[in-house]
């Protein structure tokens, strides 16, 4: 892969602006090395976590004698451990991601977003992996912290081709099982799939205690559906077509689309996923900065588990 092609997904100016914002996890992580993120296990950081009843084997140095004096019981004082973050970026490379908006395709948008996010994570010492799921099957690059690892991911992003129909819910189920330890899972897709199946997959990921972030990539026209004459709509995932009169279909199409978006947003938030609608016209930087700022406001994995 040419170096220029790899760097096509990274914009130095954008990186410079976004590098001021850390990429935080909203849930305790299970990293192997110390890092910026709260660990799922108690450790020795200075952040008090909770009191716990003493159990044989506990380090007696962690007994809180003041509590013992007050209550005549032994309690161990626990502190959160800081660990590094494991992030997995899942990119939908199905045919529908080839949709071309005025500023390029949805897949290019997703590539830039994923590449920038990977750069930011590796820069702050976190491990990043990549899963590409499309009509040609799935490709997986396991999470690594090494900066050289970014190159492999950029190459994979460059080689990704939008093609065919993807069973995204099934792919997400497989990813949920495959990613063993707690991780930040970022899904970038247009989510043109059955919402029940999608939400089931998201629920599966949350059950596996992953921190889930969803980037719903759409073009403005896919929502507005503002055509002025009968159109032959060619399916990007299969080549079949539907001839329709948008003037007649628009009202119902918009109703369906609004229902789909509302349901994904509402149900995602219900079980703690971070849902974000990323419009092609707004650019990936806006979507990423909003995502990062929101994470920063809510705390980087130091809230409740």
């Amino acid at each position: 892969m040419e170096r220029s092609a790899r760097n096509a997904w990274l914009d130095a100016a954008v990186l410079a602006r976004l590098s001021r914002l850390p990429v935080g996890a909203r849930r305790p992580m299970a990293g192997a090395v110390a890092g910026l993120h709260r660990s799922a296990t108690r450790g020795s950081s200075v952040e008090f976590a909770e009191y716990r009843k003493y159990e044989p084997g506990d380090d007696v140095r962690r007994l809180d004698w003041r509590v013992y004096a007050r209550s005549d019981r032994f309690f161990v004082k626990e502190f959160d451990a800081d660990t590094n973050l494991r992030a997995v970026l899942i990119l939908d490379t199905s045919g529908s991601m080839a949709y071309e908006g005025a500023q390029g395709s949805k897949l290019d948008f997703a590539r830039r977003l994923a590449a920038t996010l990977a750069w930011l994570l590796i820069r702050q010492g976190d491990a990043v992996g990549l899963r590409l799921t499309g009509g040609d099957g799935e490709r997986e690059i396991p999470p690594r912290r090494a900066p050289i690892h970014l190159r492999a991911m950029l190459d994979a992003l460059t080689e990704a081709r939008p093609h065919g129909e993807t069973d995204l819910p099934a792919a997400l189920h497989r990813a949920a099982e495959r990613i063993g330890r707690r991780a930040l899972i970022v899904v970038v897709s247009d989510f043109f799939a059955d919402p029940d199946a999608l939400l089931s997959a998201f629920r599966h990921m949350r059950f596996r205690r992953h921190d889930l972030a969803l980037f719903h990539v759409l073009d403005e026209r896919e929502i507005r559906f503002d055509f002025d004459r009968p159109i032959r709509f060619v399916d990007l995932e299969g080549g079949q077509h539907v001839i329709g009169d948008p003037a007649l279909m628009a009202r119902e199409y918009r109703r369906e689309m609004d229902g789909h978006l509302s349901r994904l947003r509402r149900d995602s938030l219900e079980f703690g996923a971070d849902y974000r609608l990323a419009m092609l016209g707004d650019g990936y930087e806006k979507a990423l900065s909003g995502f990062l700022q929101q994470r920063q406001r809510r705390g980087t994995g130091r809230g409740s588990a």
Partner: protein
Amino acid sequence: MIALQPAMLWGATLAAAPILIHLLNRLRYRSVRWGAMMFLRRLSRSGARRSRWRQWLILACRALALVALAMAMARWLAGGRLGGLSRGGAPDAVLTLLDRSASMERPDALAGTSLREQALREWAAVPAERVRGSRIVLIESALREPREVASLAVLPSLTSTAATDTAADGPAMFEAALDWIERHRPGRTEIWVATDGQTSNWRPSSLAWHDLAERLAGMVPTPRVRILPVRSAPLPGNRSLRARNVRHLEDGRYALGYALAGGDGDSAPLEATLIAPSGRTRYPLPAETGSGEAILRADDRQRWAGLALPPDGFAGDNVAWFAFGPAPEGEILARTTAGTMANRIRHALLPPRATDRHPVRFWPAPDEPPPALEAVALVVWQGRPPHGAHARALDRFVREGGVLLALPPDTNDAPDMHDPNPDADDNALANWDWEPEESASAERVWRVARWEREEGPWARTRDGSDLPLGEAPVRRRRPYRALQPETARALAHFDDGSVALTRETVGQGRVYALATLPLPDWSGLDDGRLWVPTLWRLREQGARRLGEARMAICGEWRPDSPDELWEPEHTDRPLDPRLHAGIYRSGARRMALNRPAEEDDSRMLDAATWQSLLPGAQLDVVAPTAGRVAGPVELSGALFLLAAIFLLTEAMLATGLLATQGDRT
């Protein structure tokens, strides 16, 4: 309807433009590579059908808007019922066939005018552009003489379109029209007919229609026929009065025989008026429908009378006219092939014990000159019709008002010297004939089951009793083959439906044809109670032509020569005896003319019958209506409004503002 700017109608072809554009667009739909197909697939199943309907509705709106605009710019006019006469531009000639028979004077309840006036007003209301440059020819039913007029608008004011008391001869009117077309060859011609379509006038069973249809189809260019039927509203309680005959009673009295119809069962006596030279007097009439007699005492100065019903819904059928005076008895001339027939006739006419008189003369042999018929009232002809000079004499006798009783030849008779020869004469009476003889079975004989009881030789007696026709068995018969089947009237039927007695009108006379013989081996009609009144009544009818006073049907009777001057006697107004009922006098002769009984016929032709009369012809029958005639109205404003409505609807459909129920869900 008519277009004042017909060239603008070409603009209506633009209606095809939206359809062509639509079809072209279908060939080149813009393709869009789309990702969110999961929504479109769901919608396309339910929306495809609505979309198709909507597209066609939009197309229809666009096309109709263009058509409406083109019609508006063409300045479309609507001219009442005759608005439909506009297609194809003005013809070279328009022949207007006006039915001015007596029934056309019935009032139109809504318009307040007669049917004839209604029809004339509708013709006059036809826009001038419709017949610009056309020759307008009037052929009215009374005289049937084609007359070219300046325009349709003058028709209502012409005396030749005024009311008459005559009947109409529909086929003859058409024949006159086709004659005119063949003589003048005007080019593209239209025949407009205004009539109430009375069946008795148009005679749909007449064979003449076949010839007319063939003549019409053979014309190039084929004339277009447009029928304008006019209909009268029902006239509840209306009565009609008809003169039947006059009987001379003893001591200077006369019995005026009349027939009363209608009244819808109202039994209150009628305050009729007796019109006489001395003035008008009230004359109460019983309200019973059917035949009756009004008794009148008259001196030598009073030789006519009129009987008028009180005013009702239709005044045209309220008056019956009578002329009377002493009439000679009239001779009977007989010709028989059956030997006993002569005696039957002689005995029926001989007064009891008057054996010295010979009231019956016999027709001479063919090789002799025909007889003098000036004083003859009735000819009884048994056998085949005559030919040559004899046939001509007989024909003239009937046409001048004589009565002929035709009896069938007896098959057992010897060959007749009057059998028709190959050089058949062209007079009407040379063609009568009889069907082969039929014999009843031994078990069952025929009987006369139905017959005309109001008039004719078998009418009721003066005291209202029926003749005992049903008692007379008929064993042998030969059905009569009518001279003019379409006009012949069956006066009596056998119990199996076959005709027993037929009456035909020839000129001013009558031909009565009996299907059996008054002989014992043929029938029981030799019974004196039947045979005597039959002969006496027919002789009396025939004798009317011999007196100074006669009664005839208006339209059927004509003066013997155009030079005869007949003046109305019942009114000071100048009237034409060929057209109007009433009392007319020419010297010592007096004539009572009455409207034809057939004019009371309520059966009218419908559109399907009109079509069947002239199969294959370009025939339009305007929907009948009753009401006021409206003048032509320019429709441009309404058409512009219509176009705007179509365009507005199209816009609402195209922008989705006008959504179907399914669209809103």
